């Protein structure tokens, strides 16, 4: 069906542009996930960074089955540059509207962070307009932070809108989710943190994302949360993640998938948890880095009520939440995906 796929499967660095000298070997080659998912039976996961607008219903079902009970969808760029304010507006609305509903149908609680991403901050006339409407969205129910913001090319425009949004976060008493750049990462990360501190943000309210072995120490030492993105080819692999946790312990560390439209993995959390379990990392440590720390950090927004998902987001719960008496039509039925017959 797709004989050439192997040959053409060059890394597709959408969320993370390809760095130099990347290993071309595919991820997860030796161990089959299906043989190891028993290890995480009964665990539940909170993915604090995933772009569900780019994912399919198959992903939602697989995530739910693997124990993901809640997630945060940061606002970012959508691949195609936006040319007008309306497409920003519709995107923000979809994060608190349609996507939130879609997620609820699969029993996964959906939160989001709102912000102007660094790439599109470079389109200054548009960025100005976006900054005007952003306050309309940051106070919405279930908005757990300002994000993902920070540097990409590290231009003056990026810095300007990063600073403006840090002020917005302070005013709204919301955590900040920082995207760190792909190129010149180490300096970009340091610069992001220095500016956040300069604006008087409490580092325990700031989640510095996309860390690696080179950046983590400084992030933790300065009191920030350090998030790690398990993303095949272009970012962290989960074996490296295991080593990071072995070295630094679980405090203020969290794992995410940042899955988007590129070759990425919405099951990055459960897979990493299984690998950690295999390598002998304590259950409590796994729980902290794949669930609790994210809740503690983003919960500072006051928008996360764990009773909404810790026992699973049942249809009944969703109804209660919306004051709704309808039983069906809320949850998507399971489809027999392995069957040839489609009913």
């Amino acid at each position: 069906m797709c004989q050439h796929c192997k040959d053409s499967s060059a890394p597709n660095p959408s969320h993370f542009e390809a760095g130099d000298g990347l290993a071309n070997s595919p991820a997860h080659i030796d161990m089959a996930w299906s043989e190891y998912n028993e290890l995480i039976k009964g665990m539940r996961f909170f993915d604090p960074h995933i772009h569900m607008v780019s994912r399919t219903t198959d992903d939602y079902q697989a995530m739910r089955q693997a124990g993901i009970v809640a997630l945060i969808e940061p606002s970012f760029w959508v691949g195609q540059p936006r040319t007008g304010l309306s497409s920003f507006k519709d995107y923000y609305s979809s994060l608190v509207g349609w996507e939130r509903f879609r997620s609820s149908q699969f029993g996964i609680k959906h939160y989001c962070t709102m912000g102007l991403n660094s790439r599109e901050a470079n389109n200054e006339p548009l960025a100005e307009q976006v900054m005007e409407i952003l306050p309309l969205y940051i106070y919405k129910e279930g908005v757990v932070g300002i994000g993902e913001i920070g540097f990409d090319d590290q231009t003056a425009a990026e810095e300007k809108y990063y600073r403006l949004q840090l002020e917005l976060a302070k005013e709204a008493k919301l955590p900040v989710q920082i995207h760190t750049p792909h190129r010149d990462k180490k300096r970009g990360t340091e610069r992001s943190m220095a500016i956040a501190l300069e604006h008087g943000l409490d580092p325990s309210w700031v989640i510095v994302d996309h860390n690696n072995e080179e950046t983590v120490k400084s992030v933790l030492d300065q009191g920030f949360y350090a998030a790690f993105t398990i993303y095949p080819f272009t970012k962290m692999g989960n074996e490296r993640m295991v080593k990071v946790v072995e070295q630094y312990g679980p405090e203020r560390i969290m794992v995410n998938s940042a899955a988007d439209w590129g070759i990425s993995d919405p099951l990055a959390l459960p897979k990493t948890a299984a690998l950690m379990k295999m390598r002998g990392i304590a259950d409590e440590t796994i729980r902290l880095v794949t669930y609790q720390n994210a809740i503690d950090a983003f919960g500072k927004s006051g928008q996360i009520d764990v009773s909404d998902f810790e026992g699973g987001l049942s249809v009944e719960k969703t109804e209660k939440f919306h004051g709704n008496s309808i039983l069906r039509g809320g949850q998507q039925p399971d489809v027999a995906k392995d069957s040839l017959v489609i009913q």
Partner: protein
Amino acid sequence: MSHLINTTLWEVISQNISETETDWLTQKGNGSPIELMTAFVASPRFLPKKIVNIESAQEHSLHEIVPGFSINGWSLVRLARVWLLTKLDASDKEAFVKNIETLFDTAEMNELVALYSALPVLDFPEQWLFRATDAVRSNMGFVFDAIALHNPYPAKYFSELAWNQLVLKTIFNDKPVHFITGLEERQNENLALVLSDFAHERWAAGRSVAPNVWRLVSKYLNDTLLSDVAHLFHTPHFYNHEAAALVCFDSEYEPAKALLSGYPEFEKSITEGALTWSNLEFTDLNTYVPTLQR
């Protein structure tokens, strides 16, 4: 109307919240339009997540003011949001409409639910007709429910075409039609005829039709619809037989009476009041699963 309704709504709210929450809400409710709109958005940050308790006397007086309007089972936030909207200054129509439109344009899911729930009590009701029909087009289940179920606005203002779409989409989405306010009053022949076509498509696909839906055809029976009713008697599911009998019983169409006479046991239990449409008012519909032949 707004004044009366907001007094009654406030009575319910005040019985359900603490003193600090009361202070916050009162202050915002008396604020400028911008403050009020911001409070509409921010209310989940200041009010507890719970379902409102309402006394039957209060429920009754709401009905008196706006027939069919009900806040039963609402969350406190939803109620507070609707109350805030009734406090929004409507003396300048243009400004009022613009403010409501802004809230719609930037609304998240629960805000949309509150906005559509408020339509029966907002001033300038005709102004919201497009929004209301757009909610019927929504694929967000909760938003659809807010306009289609337990809401008196559509029955009062929708055209026949828009009304029929609402009813059909409720059926299509496996939601119970008996939750639609004004279902009996807005019955019409076109709807009954479309339901026949709909049922044929469903049957061709090996799927079923919720038995309660057939209550909408009794008044409009013709040969085609009667053959559908006869078909119901031959499906394996008992509820379909009951629905078919009820349709015939309700109908003035002579051939329907003749059909029913072949099922004296149903005729008897309808006459005795043991079998009514309320026996078929199910809420856990699942008509897409072929094995459940309803």
